[in-house]
């Protein structure tokens, strides 16, 4: 059975005994993984996941299953309704999403949804053979298929999505460089240029010098900026975090440099993912920061009802606990190339990637993490050489406030953040200072 009729069937099984919403995810994933310059793990899976939420007079229970047969689904429906009856009333239950059309953007490529292991392996091979004498490691994956939503309030949506990513490193001894590409279509990704990107950085990263930890002027790659953006999104632009007093966001206030404009826009041609959220609300384009001023929060139905506003379509699965999160973030690019930004630095660092960043406090947005896969000293506007990885402890909002943001790059692209590919489009940034608090020796 196709995903949309399956979703409708499960809603029908609940009938008038409860409010019900159902998401059926029919996407299939394949991932080809390489290390030491050969493919060592190659995996794929098929199937469907059915997510059901019911509410009986405000008593809510949710269930997820990989069983898509009628008998299994009927049992799940009965158990979930039974569980809902046994629990206390959810005082914040917002009710179901009303019928509404989703915007027409489609981020789907059928060839990607049906990609073969050979197509993935070909890109892995081309990434690996971008250099001789290196050790290459990484992955190529494809994910795609139909997703459907239905609820007992009459909302019914169906779309198809796809995403492909090639991500990896080349290593020459202890020096490494990374290359990334993500798109809705695998056909837009070629292994050789992504591999060449990694090779170029890895060669430059050879023979790193030790550098004394201190505050340095920095140029950060789009990948670093993407990681910063995700912390701002998960802990800041999340209306649940804001309602709980844990967000830094002060709406209407100038909290960033005037060159910072950040939107969440599913309609962007680069975006990946479905056109509606986990509540079944169509996604809306949302300006989060405009010219440095905090303008909006991401809402799901639960937070929007509490705040007396409307959902922006940013519910995620599991969001009852974590709140709504924007997943199509775009940091508006500037006019400078990365090379021009580096040329304007008298003494500072160029950082290719961040690694293992964790938040110390959500209000202040202080994170700690390390540099990885290429950190370079800039002297007199030129790359003077590689330096060893450094640890930093830094407030993200502090780094982007007025007077601290020196330049915004023109090179915005879908950049892998630490939390995964396809979530953030970001440019390089030139910042007046970034606090490095430890070197290779601690």
């Amino acid at each position, binding site marked *: 059975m196709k995903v949309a009729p399956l979703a409708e069937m499960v809603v029908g099984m609940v009938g008038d005994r409860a409010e019900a919403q159902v998401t059926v995810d029919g996407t299939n994933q394949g991932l080809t993984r390489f290390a030491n310059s050969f493919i060592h793990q190659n995996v794929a899976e098929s199937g469907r996941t059915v997510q059901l939420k019911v509410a009986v007079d405000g008593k809510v229970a949710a269930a997820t299953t990989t069983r898509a047969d009628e008998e299994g689904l009927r049992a799940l429906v009965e158990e979930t309704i039974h569980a809902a009856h046994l629990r206390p009333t959810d005082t914040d239950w917002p009710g179901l999403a009303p019928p509404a059309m989703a915007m027409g953007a489609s981020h789907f490529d059928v060839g990607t949804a049906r990609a073969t292991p050979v197509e993935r392996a070909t890109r892995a091979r081309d990434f690996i053979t971008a250099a001789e004498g290196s050790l290459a490691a990484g992955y190529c994956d494809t994910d795609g298929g139909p997703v459907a939503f239905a609820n007992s309030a009459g909302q019914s949506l169906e779309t198809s999505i796809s995403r492909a990513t090639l991500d990896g490193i080349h290593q020459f001894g202890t020096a490494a460089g990374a290359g990334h590409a993500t798109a809705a279509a695998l056909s837009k990704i070629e292994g050789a240029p992504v591999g060449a990107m990694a090779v170029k950085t890895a060669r430059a990263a050879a023979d790193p010098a030790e550098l004394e930890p201190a505050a340095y002027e920095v140029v950060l790659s789009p990948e670093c900026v993407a990681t910063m953006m995700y912390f701002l999104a998960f802990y800041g632009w999340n209306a649940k975090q804001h309602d709980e007093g844990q967000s830094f966001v002060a709406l209407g206030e100038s909290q960033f440099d005037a060159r910072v404009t950040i939107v969440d826009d599913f309609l962007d041609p680069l975006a990946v993912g479905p056109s509606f959220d986990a509540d079944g609300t169509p996604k809306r384009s949302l300006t989060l920061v405009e010219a440095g001023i905090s303008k909006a929060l991401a809402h799901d139905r639960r937070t929007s009802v509490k705040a007396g506003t409307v959902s922006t379509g940013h519910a995620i699965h599991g969001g009852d606990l974590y709140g709504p999160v924007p997943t199509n973030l775009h940091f508006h690019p500037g006019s400078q190339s990365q090379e021009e930004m580096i040329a304007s630095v008298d003494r500072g660092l160029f950082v290719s990637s961040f690694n293992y960043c964790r938040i110390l406090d959500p209000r*202040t947005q202080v994170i700690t993490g390390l540099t990885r896969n290429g950190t370079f000293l800039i002297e007199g506007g030129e790359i003077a050489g590689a330096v060893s990885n450094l640890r930093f402890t830094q407030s993200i909002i502090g780094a982007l406030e007025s007077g601290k943001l020196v330049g915004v790059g023109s090179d915005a692209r879908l950049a892998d953040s630490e939390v995964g590919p396809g979530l953030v489009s970001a440019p390089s940034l030139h910042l007046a200072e970034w606090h490095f608090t430890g070197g290779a020796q*601690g």
Partner: protein
Amino acid sequence: MEVGTGVFSDRVAPMFAISQSAVEGALAAGAAYADARVVLSKQQSLACLNGNLEALDYDERAGVGVRALIGSSWGFFATPELTEQAALAAGAEAAAIATASAMAPGPALHLTDVPVVEAHYETSHEENPWGVALSEKADLLVGVTETMQGVTGVTLAQASMNFWDTEKFFVSSQGHKISQHLVEAGGDMAATAVGESETQRRSYPQSFGQFESGGYEVIRRFDLPGNAGRVAEEAVALLSADECPGGTTDVILESSQLALQIHESVGHATELDRILGWEAAFAGTSWLDLDQLGTLQFGSPLMNITADATLPGSLATFGFDDEGTPAQCVDLVKEGVWVGVLSGRDSAAIAGLAPGGMVRGDGYNRMPMVRMTNVGLLPGESSFEEIISETRDGIYMATNRSWSIDDKRLNFQFGCEVGWEVKNGRLGRMLRNPTYTGISPQFWASLDMLSSEQVYWGLPNCGKGQPMQIGHTGHPASAGRFRDVRVGVKG
């Protein structure tokens, strides 16, 4: 554990038949070796915020995953369709995926031998979590959050519990036939106080919750109601506590923080797949070099670390790993010397070592990989009170708040929820935002006192691999003192 033939009930025969079909499908398509697992898993999660039950979730996953070895690569395919016909096709698909890996081939992969057994294992537990009424569970969570909320200054009072029930039916082309039934339980509570410019949080039993192998008796042992008031009061007190000073001093780590220190800086560093470079692009590699196995001084003589999958009640306790290797206890660090690794049949063959039985997959649809079992620090001989009384100047830090470590597992920085100054053998003022940082071997070399009061801490959220897999790991630990550690790192 029951071992031998005739231990399986009629109910499980169809599951084994499905696994067997998957293996046969892979062999017929050219696999040199194949194994398959039918996995039937269910999870129940409850979460409460400020007296309101925010989430009551049930998750069930059922399917078969088959692994086929051809040349230098594993091919893996998973399907939720539990029929022998679908399993046969899944096996063939796994072999086809492995064959595609020849586009970028490497040295042929081999497996070390392990005993071929037919066996059944079941987690010992007293009280089936699924038999406890939802209302009882909900009442407990609502009650403790209301208690925490009753303390003036607490903004957020959270509590949660999780239960897992997993059945596995493993068959290999070498003749393994193993079923296992694993039961796990755990939970936590936390109070958050929101100040003018920052938040402070205290949690119990630890910041990610405490998880163990066992039934609902695990939750009852925690005594959440008896600790709710204290946790809330400490969260509020932190807002006005003095900031942890910067500098170098002696650090005493509470056992759950030391458990995470072990996880990040010893457990991951000793994973053989990382050492061999298999995780280089994502999780990273390791600072350890196999040439130094048996001679490298990892830490002080007080440092004795084992990976023991047989510890009763610990979270990563099982009968067999997902390659059919029996659970066992392996020395990783002995009297400060690095002596062992976490391994599976393929990685052990490359390193010329015995397989450690440490390969597990996250559900039917993830390929098994090297995972920590119960990687823990053997207890010392001191009491906690003795450690405090023998410390002239230091900071006692408890309960993790943040963690970060580099891709070689060398350079780390941890933040804890709370610290207390230690002066002249006594605990003193409370300190907020305590952090410490260091380099693994230097840090572990500074361990000079270790408590005898060991706790089997369990973590349910260890991420590794691509696609991402979440692993359950155990970490026996007791409080320990480390000398001359850099603390109070600020940006």
